[in-house]
């Protein structure tokens, strides 16, 4: 337990100490929220879909979480390059515990980031239908965060250098975000897109947030939570196996 805690603490410290990174990673969600939110607002309204800022805000919260979480997971490439990974790999701690410590750490960090975006969204006009829904929404945000930290760690544990980082950003994070229903409703999509969105775990995370904050969901909260919990468990478990196979 103590070993998991110290690995978690390391992630938190690293995050809190990189102030520029915290501020920098707020710029992108803010831009999306303002440009898209106000830009598409009237079109969305005329199409009879209601307030776009309200619809978009959970999507942008999801976006800030997936970016922060994946990034924290991917940091393992730097641990490898700077040598710290060796220190971790020779330590008498089970690979599952390393994975749990890392993902809880990344999960916490990304949840904090998501919460900051939630507050900013409220300042810019996001009005949740259910204010009390924010509390369970934080739990869902944490689940999304853990899921994608685990995914990032898992994929990055197989990579040796920076090229891997670009690859993950362009071929994993971007598609996961754009194909998740963060920006558009999941109803009445072309069949292929419907299929793709339904295998993107982020779709379920954002859907759960919309359910809790706005009261409308595509998949339904039970499906959302089941998928999130199962996929998170799977990724953490798989990640610990990937860890066992790391050679330096």
């Amino acid at each position, binding site marked *: 337990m*103590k*070993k998991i805690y*110290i690995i978690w603490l*390391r992630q938190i*410290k*690293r995050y809190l*100490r*990189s*102030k*520029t*990174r915290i501020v*920098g990673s707020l710029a992108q969600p803010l831009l999306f929220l303002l440009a898209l939110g106000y830009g598409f607002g009237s079109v969305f309204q005329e199409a009879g879909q209601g307030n776009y800022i309200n619809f978009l805000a959970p999507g942008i919260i999801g976006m800030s979480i997936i970016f922060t979480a994946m*990034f924290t997971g991917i940091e393992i490439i*730097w*641990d490898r*390059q*700077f*040598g*710290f*990974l*060796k*220190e*971790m*790999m*020779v*330590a*008498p*701690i*089970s690979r599952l515990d390393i994975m749990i410590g890392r993902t809880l750490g990344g999960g916490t960090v990304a949840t904090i980031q998501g919460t900051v975006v939630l507050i900013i969204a409220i300042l810019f006009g996001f009005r949740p239908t259910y204010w009390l829904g924010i509390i369970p929404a934080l739990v869902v945000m944490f689940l999304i965060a853990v899921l994608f930290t685990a995914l990032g760690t898992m994929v990055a544990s197989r990579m040796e*250098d*920076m090229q891997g*980082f670009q690859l993950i950003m362009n071929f994993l994070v971007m598609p996961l975000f754009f194909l998740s229903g963060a920006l558009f409703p999941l109803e009445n999509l072309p069949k292929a897109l419907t299929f793709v969105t339904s295998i993107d775990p982020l779709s379920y995370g954002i859907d759960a947030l919309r359910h809790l904050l706005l009261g409308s969901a595509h998949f339904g909260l039970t499906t959302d939570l089941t998928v999130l919990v199962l996929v998170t468990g799977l990724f953490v478990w798989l990640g610990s196996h990937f860890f066992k196979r790391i*050679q*330096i």
Partner: protein
Amino acid sequence: MIDVQNLTKKFGDFLAVDDISFNVKQGEIFAFLGPNGAGKSTTIKMLTTLLHPTSGSLSLNGHNPTEDPEKARRDFGIVFQDPSLDDELTAWENIDLHGILYDVSNDVRKERAEQLLKFVDLWDRKDNFVKEFSGGMKRRLEIARGLLHHPKIIFLDEPTLGLDPQTRNSMWAYLKDLNQKEQTTIFFTTHYMEEAERIAQRIAIIDHGKIISIGTADQLKTQTNTASLEEAFLSLTGKTIREEEGDGGKGRMRSMHRMWSGSRK
């Protein structure tokens, strides 16, 4: 304590370690010498569970590092040749993290951390970030960290590289004390021949992945009919200068990392 039989490691076509066998007894101080690229670090990586051998068998205190890594990891400690600190943490945090990972109890951890940081002359810098340290200071911190838990076997991969004679001296004094009090087995590599001659009870010389000679310093000198271990080493391995490996693009990584994390240095 350490038993290696017919150990071989291939990277593609390159034979890094070629069918070596040796053993180290409990409480022994054993030096593993060889020119750059001879296979020293690769052998240490296999012994410390970081690499899987292509063939051959290994045993550390009765545990196989490849098949039963969790058990093997409880029995050894290692000071790596290249950096393995977390730059974004302070010296104290690096040490503390290590102590917790190795189950060192709170009291012992605090007491030893203080003692070791004082002895590598970093006590008044303990709350500074490692990224602010010079190369030599990082090296000293790595050594202090490596000695924090008292394992049955300590691996040291060129531990004294870049250390001043004072630190080198007190490091060996500490290790010898540990060796006598706790019967700690010490396995180290070095390029300083006089160090190996002075400290090690037995010495193995490896070149091109093969062990070419093994014995006490005196035996090696007699065998080669030379007056010092340095001459014996040169007579066994020849005088050609070996290439070091490249840094594998680390310079570029560092600048990318700086860009992303936005750190100031």
